[in-house]
């Protein structure tokens, strides 16, 4: 089923992609499948073990489902402190 989600990129990912936000049409069932599609769209988007995802401003897991209208935040490895 085709969904439209808003994807937001941060820090190194924003610089790799070249913009902070985009609308993406996708059939991906999970955040992880969506990330694969994003990598196909942006070959510079590197996969890291420590990358994280949030859906609608809540921390989520990569196997979590995504729904039409979701905002998906793609976080490269964090480095606070």
């Amino acid at each position: 089923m085709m969904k439209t989600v808003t994807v937001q990129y941060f820090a190194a990912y924003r610089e790799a992609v070249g913009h902070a936000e985009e609308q993406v049409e996708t059939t991906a069932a999970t955040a992880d499948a969506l990330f694969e599609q994003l990598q196909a769209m942006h070959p510079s988007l590197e996969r890291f073990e420590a990358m994280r995802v949030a859906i609608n401003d809540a921390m989520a897991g990569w196997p979590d489902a995504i729904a039409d209208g979701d905002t998906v935040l793609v976080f490269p490895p964090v480095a606070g402190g």
Partner: protein
Amino acid sequence: MVITADAIDPVACYAQLQDHSCGACVTFEGWVRNHQDGREVRSLEYEVYHPLAVSEGERVIAEARARHPVTHALCVHREGHLELGDLAVWVGVSSPHRDESFLAARMVIDQIKVRLPIWKKEHYLDGDSGWVNCERCANHGHAHS
């Protein structure tokens, strides 16, 4: 959990920990260091995604308090441009006895560093700059302060 673009005032933060029922106070400060993985650092930027940095920071503090019962526990993290020696993160805890304060302060800073959506871009003396991967990042594993 506070995220601020202004310089952190450790004295003002510390005042919030004071309590006559407490005999112990532990603070941790993270400072901008002049070297990282053998490279000379000139300054850095923190990028913070506010809504989740605050909510995840509150969760970290609540978890630390649940495991190590302390009377007060606070954390403040900078965002924006920082110079060498600047205070990047402040953690402060007070409790009746010292064991809980040490353990809670350590747990808070350890978790803050790996869980909050905060990213650090280092500017090097050689003119180069780059995003720092987190300390548990498998691809570029190395220890930070």
